[in-house]
């Protein structure tokens, strides 16, 4: 079964289980891109190709979520462009000569993230990741479900065995506050 772009983008924006399912469908539906990449980029091994594809899927997912993907082109075209660029990045990393690949296509600019990218350094992001792991299992689960996968509070309550959505909300903000404190802010 083939899923339309409208269906996939709609489901990803809905969040929760429907988002997870849609990402899986998108991944499998467009995997032929990797097989084609295998014949096109013979210097890359399977691991590189899967990494490039995963990176493209994550980029497309994020751009659908932050509205940067507006549906001007088909998801597959968009995905393929990012995948090829990632493959070229891998080829450059492997090559001892700084070859210029003329085929590299520009990714769509993610304007909404520009400002955040200026504020936040890679070191800060890494520090947050480390502190997140110190928070404990329940906080990690709540923050991942809520802030990354887009589950609503009722779904999270059911998934992790909380009494109700309100308990999840309270806990979520307590976890965010704790994370903030771990980052050194009172």
């Amino acid at each position, binding site marked *: 079964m083939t899923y339309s772009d409208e269906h996939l983008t709609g489901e990803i924006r809905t969040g929760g289980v429907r988002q997870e399912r849609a990402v899986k469908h998108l991944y499998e539906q467009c995997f032929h891109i990797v097989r084609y990449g295998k014949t096109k980029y013979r210097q890359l091994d399977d691991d590189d190709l899967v990494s490039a594809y995963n990176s493209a*899927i994550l980029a497309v997912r994020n751009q659908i979520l932050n509205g940067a993907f507006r549906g001007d082109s088909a998801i597959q075209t968009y995905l393929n462009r990012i995948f090829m660029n990632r493959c070229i990045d891998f080829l450059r990393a492997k090559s001892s000569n700084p070859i210029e690949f003329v085929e590299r296509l520009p990714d769509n600019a993610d304007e909404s993230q520009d400002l955040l990218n200026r504020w936040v350094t890679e070191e800060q992001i890494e520090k947050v990741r480390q502190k997140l792991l110190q928070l404990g299992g329940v906080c990690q689960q709540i923050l991942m479900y809520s802030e990354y996968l887009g589950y609503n509070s009722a779904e999270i309550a059911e998934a992790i065995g909380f009494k109700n959505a309100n308990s999840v909300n309270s806990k979520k903000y307590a976890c965010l506050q704790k994370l903030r404190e771990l980052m050194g802010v009172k």
Partner: protein
Amino acid sequence: MEHQTYELLKRYAQGRMSETERADFEHRLATDAAFAEEAAMWAAIYKGIQAEGDRQLEKQLRDAGKKLIQTEPVAELKPSVVNPALKKRFQVPRWVYAIAAALLLLLVAWPVYQNLRPSEPAFADNKALFGHYFRQPPAPEVRDAQVSAWRAAYQNKDYAAATAELEHLLADPAYTRRSEANLYLGLSRLASGQGQQALDAFREVSADSFDWEDAQWYSALAYIIVDDVVHAKQTLREISDREDHPHRQEAQSVLNAMK
């Protein structure tokens, strides 16, 4: 209040603000240093959570990708001029192959089995059976270099002369190697077709002597030639029951042939 800033920042990052909201938010960031600092902290937290989420999702996708890349896609080609539809081939069920293989194996193995199987002689009568199994043993080794008359006659297959010489020896009560002499007397008589007389000689062989086992075996053959099947089988069973008997295999074979 802090959480309101986080939620605002999240909406901004996800592009869910209207144009007016977005403009107001950016204006406040530019003019309110405390708010900008607060927002920067939440931005780091928001992006850190997204980065960790991406890492976990990537890990899941990697497992799926490794499986997918190892499986060939199912070809769904439609018939065309360059790619004509394949005719549906008749497929022979596996059990037909199994039966055919078994029959082929039987066909090849049966003649081999027939050739390798020891053929059991079909004996017309006891005489034929006796003829198949009776082998005249050679004369005993001479240790003292004095070739006696009976040995010479026996070696030359002059069984009548050998019989006469042995009877002459055995008539002397002082003769000591009586078991050996009786064994060869029996064998000479058996070779001359005197089964009953041969039996008389074999009976005189001492059970304690080295010649006893041979005497037993040739007695069984003598019973066969005189058509005494009962005593023949009895003697053959005695031989085949003894694991160390030198004629055990032959005795079993004769017993099988007599069934």
